């Protein structure tokens, strides 16, 4: 039962990571790419780590995986926010409807 739940969590995480990569490849602007990358990667990685924890059970490895999940949930949006702040202060223009893709 726990194995089936772990498989479902891993597949949901894999779906979100693939969607994030496609968004990074196909969106027209830096800010939309940051939106796709930041949110989809954080959620996909969290779901995959939850799946690994359910697969491992109550061991020391799952405690380390939980610490890694908490660290990633704090650090990944912070890094993307810092990059977007740098881009905004350097004057990267946002994309409007009708412009050509950057």
């Amino acid at each position: 039962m726990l194995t089936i739940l772990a498989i479902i969590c891993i597949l949901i995480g894999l779906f979100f990571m693939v969607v994030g990569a496609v968004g990074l490849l196909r969106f027209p602007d830096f800010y939309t790419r940051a939106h796709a990358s930041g949110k989809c990667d954080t959620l996909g990685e969290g779901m995959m780590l939850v799946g690994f924890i359910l697969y491992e059970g109550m061991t020391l490895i799952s405690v380390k995986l939980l610490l890694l999940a908490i660290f990633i949930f704090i650090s990944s949006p912070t890094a993307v926010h810092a990059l977007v702040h740098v881009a905004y202060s350097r004057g990267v223009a946002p994309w409007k409807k009708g412009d050509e893709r950057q």
Partner: protein
Amino acid sequence: MNDIFLASTIILVITIFLCLYRAIYGPGVENRLIAVNTIGTKTIIILLLIGLLYGRPIFVDISIVYAMINFIATIAIAKYLRRGCVC
């Protein structure tokens, strides 16, 4: 279960190649940086999958260290681009 781990690893490697296009051809330094950050977060998951696939729990520690290095590198490069020096 091993089949699912192996299939997930292969799909993530293909996804890394999709991000590598943005890291090579992306206009400006910001697109390249965000692509490299995404590749780093996918690499953490690939390290964990390899550790589970071959039964070596030491890979969990390696992935924790990789997550910290990825975060610090991104913050340091962002600070350098903003101020002109890492200080």
